[in-house]
């Protein structure tokens, strides 16, 4: 396979796509948000259960491509137990990783496993797939009342 593609569809991403974590609704969620990617039809919900300032539980549901599903899975895994400020900080790191110039380094220390999405920046059309869950999470954590759309 072409090396860029191998970077994009890494084993970890394919595993999370096949068996996504936290792929369910939280019935007693304290907040939720809905996100759309009109270009490819990705559509997901993010559910949050906050305990004060801390994310007690987080989950997602929906239909989408491998990148968006793996992103939702790994995001929820990374954010469980984090504070609101930590979640916002991680969102900023992920955004920086996805929008950086190809070839530029990523903050692997802060991103941890999420650095597996570093190869997405080689595929400008797919950046929105990787960021959809994150934008939707941000809407759930700090609602603006808008439906999230990547357009």
């Amino acid at each position, binding site marked *: 396979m072409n090396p860029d*593609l191998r970077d994009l*569809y890494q084993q970890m991403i394919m595993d999370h796509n096949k068996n996504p974590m936290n792929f369910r609704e939280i019935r007693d969620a304290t907040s939720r948000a809905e996100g759309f990617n009109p270009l490819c039809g990705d559509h997901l919900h993010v559910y949050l259960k906050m305990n004060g300032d801390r994310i007690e539980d987080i989950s997602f549901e929906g*239909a989408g*491509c*491998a*990148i968006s599903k793996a992103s939702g899975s790994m995001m929820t895994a990374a954010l469980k137990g984090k504070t609101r400020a930590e979640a916002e900080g991680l969102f900023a790191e992920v955004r920086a990783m996805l929008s950086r110039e190809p070839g530029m380094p990523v903050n692997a220390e802060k991103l941890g496993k999420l650095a597996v999405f570093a190869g997405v920046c080689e595929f400008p059309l*797919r950046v929105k797939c990787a960021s959809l869950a994150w934008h939707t999470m941000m809407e759930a954590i700090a609602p603006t009342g808008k439906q999230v759309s990547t357009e």
Partner: protein
Amino acid sequence: MNGLDVAKVREDFPVLHERVYGKPLIYLDNAATTQKPKIVIETIKQFYSRENANIHRGIFCLSERATRRYENARLKVKEFLGAASEKEIVFVRGATEAINLVAQTWGRAFLGKGDEVLITHMEHHSNIVPWQILREEKGIKLKVAPVDDAGELIMEEFRKLLTDKVKFVSVVHVSNALGTLNPVEEIIRLAHEKGAKVLIDGAQAVAHEAVNVRDLDADFYVLSGHKLFAPTGIGVLYGKAELLDQMPPYQGGGDMIRSVTFEATTYNKIPYKFEAGTPHIAGAIGLGVAVDYLRGIGLEWIAAYEKELLAYGTKKLLAIPGLRLIGTAKRKAAVLSFTLGEAHAHDIGTILDRAGIAIRAGHHCAMPLMQRFGVSATTRVSLAFYNTREEIDRLSDALREVVEVFK
């Protein structure tokens, strides 16, 4: 024509010799838009280099020349569609604008509360939304004829829905998402028996088979130039003269008027009544040349060649494990829409793209149809007469790679 001739035809299309990611481009998104032959590109260049002027108003040489070329394009389109008169050929932006024009003029003038408009489940959004807008304004009822699992219109249901209340029927000739070729002749006959008028959305039909609007007895027929090897931004509304004459204008402005005072304005005759403002002059001229080019190649040959290519592609794709074709109508244009195991269309699109293969992934502006088949998106391969068996072989190889990635 044999394989050698296709190689010659490909010489006419510069973009087919592009490379992407270092690989030769394989362009299989012809239902979205077609590529342009050199003769069209050259004509447009020539127009802007040597002939550019506004039409229908200048009293100088260039304007006279531009007007002649523009009107000549109308004649070519008239011949191409088999219309009775060039008055029946209205230049618009594309199929979308043509349908909106009919809904907003004929629809507004002749449809009222309780009147019904009948469409099908396989319409492009451009043949759904204009009627919903009219429903908001006029209180008409919009009815939808169902399709079966093969993607064919269920004629028995269509007949049942075609009641006396139906005043207008608007149906796609060839489905962009499935390739289904609808029995438009029969549809038009049935609708006329009920006294309803019929619009046929020919956006996907005209590049693939010969169409004669008079043989069909269509009241309106619409197409987009860019799907017919011509530029974007130009399209055609064909309408029977007697209907166009009765219709109020669409937009107001220059060219569509005979005389204007602040008290009263009289409108120009058809087709100019519907061509307000400066049109896409170069686009229309390009469309005329594209139509000539197509007739030179021969639509019969194109239809036969594409049929063979479709059969080859169908066989090749069905041999790929986990591939499900969406749209298996008996009469079909060269469109292969499919899902592939658990792989999402968007991922398939990315992997094919890196192999140099351009296809479409998504809902194809036919979301209700996707829902009908229980999918949110499909991968769509749409062929034109410049595509080859070798390209389909490369597609098949790349799809097998997708299967590997997603196994």
